């Protein structure tokens, strides 16, 4: 039943159209015919209440996520390697990380505003918090999962510490680190939408859908949500493709 997976989406679309016809209140449930034109004109600013085109807004959100994500990776990966390699570092950082980790990224918003004021820095900070912990924890796990024999083989074959790090530990931990990056990016993408609701922000997909709400444009909200979902899906797809291409050995160590 290869086509079964398409059944529910089709039923949903049909049900949606039927419901919107019965409710006949576009603020509660707009017809798809008012959502699709927005999606078909992603470069046109005319459908987005003067906030710039859908593509522009998406580009800005992606840029923000990218920044927060890159900073998170740049801090979490080296720290994770240190913690994975050295029990001393691990014991030193572990308790504070366990303490901070359960705090939802959005709980940091007020503090972010107090520290960085309204603006890009606050948004990037929230995204950083969201992406940081999955990347860190997976890096620690990945480094710890590097097999002892791999290290000993390198030692007996004359590898220096630096070579062991670059040629054994990093490639050995890479698949798990990559999983951390993938999960971290997913969370970062969720965070950006909410972070764009901060006061003083005037662009981005998150801003767009909230702005649309203020104007009662539910069709634009839904179109924005679909774009947010599709972008998240595409990026996850890329992460998975790379995983399959480069890390297909994972779980097959023998």
């Amino acid at each position: 039943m290869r086509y079964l997976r398409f059944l529910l989406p089709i039923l949903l679309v049909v049900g949606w159209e039927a419901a919107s016809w019965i409710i006949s209140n576009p603020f509660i449930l707009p017809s798809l015919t008012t959502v699709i034109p927005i999606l078909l004109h992603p470069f046109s600013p005319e459908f987005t209440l003067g906030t710039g085109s859908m593509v522009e807004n998406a580009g800005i959100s992606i840029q923000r996520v990218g920044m927060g994500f890159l900073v998170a990776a740049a801090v979490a990966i080296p720290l994770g390697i240190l913690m994975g390699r050295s029990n001393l570092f691990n014991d030193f950082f572990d308790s504070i990380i366990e303490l901070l980790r359960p705090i939802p990224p959005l709980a940091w918003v007020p503090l972010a505003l107090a520290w960085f004021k309204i603006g890009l820095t606050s948004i990037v900070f929230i995204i950083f918090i969201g992406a940081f912990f999955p990347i860190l924890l997976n890096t620690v796990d990945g480094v710890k999962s590097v097999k002892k024999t791999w290290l000993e083989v390198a030692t007996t074959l004359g590898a220096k510490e630096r070579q062991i790090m670059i040629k054994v530990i990093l490639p050995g931990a890479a698949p798990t680190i990559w999983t951390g990056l993938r999960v971290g990016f997913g969370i970062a993408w969720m965070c950006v939408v909410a972070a764009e609701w901060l006061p003083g922000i005037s662009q981005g997909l998150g801003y767009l859908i909230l702005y649309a709400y203020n104007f009662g444009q539910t069709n634009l909200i839904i179109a924005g949500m679909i774009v947010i979902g599709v972008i998240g899906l595409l990026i996850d797809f890329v992460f998975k493709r790379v995983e399959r291409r480069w890390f297909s050995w994972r779980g097959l160590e023998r």
Partner: protein
Amino acid sequence: MGELPVTLVLKDLSKSFVGEAKVEVEALSHINLEVRDGEFVSVLGPSGCGKTTLLRIIAGLDNASGGRILLDGNVIDGPCPRMAMIFQEYSLYPWRTVIDNIAFGLEMKGMEKQQRREKAFEFLELVGLVDFAGNYPYELSGGMRQRVAVARALAIDPQILLMDEPFGALDAQTRNMLQRELLEIWEKTKKTVVFVTHSVDEAVFLSDRVVVLTPRPGTIRDVVSIDLPRPRERTGAEFARIRRYVLDHMEHAAASSKV
């Protein structure tokens, strides 16, 4: 054998460590052994006799609690590129192709890519896996993977091969095949081999001398020289006699340590 020079000397090697019950456990006690250049020596003993620990100490992966190791008269304390170790399992890098696994040691020495691949290819030929140069370890059988591990160890041109139950995870047939291949390679390359095993059959089939260890603490119970010409016939009467003899020693060793 007599005229070959001694290359590896173990002098009074001991190893003890603090076990789980916080009691000091003596794993090896006063091991003295001389290995001649080009000799094939097996270290035989039941599991837990410290034979792997002994090999790891020689390889520089563990420290001895007492005693010394000399290689051609020089004291060894740490990993030494003149000795290469072959592990039982999980030793190949799964993200590297076969050829790049074999070239690993050469890469660590800073050899150029083209040059080290050519060199690695020679050893790939030696172990008969030319067709698998571009494959990944998980695409190979257990026997093939150990051939790659042997090729990788040989590629750095060590004087001594240290082998830690290298065929222990293989089925009997593959095991016998690899033993024969190992002997061919040994005769071709004239390496010294120190081979750890718990299989009497394997030790007698392969070795010039078999060192029988007692369990806990590991001490040398006996050293049995085997003069049978190679290739040895496992079903031959002389083979059976030596096997019986070594086995008796091993059982005695085990029995005496229980007292």
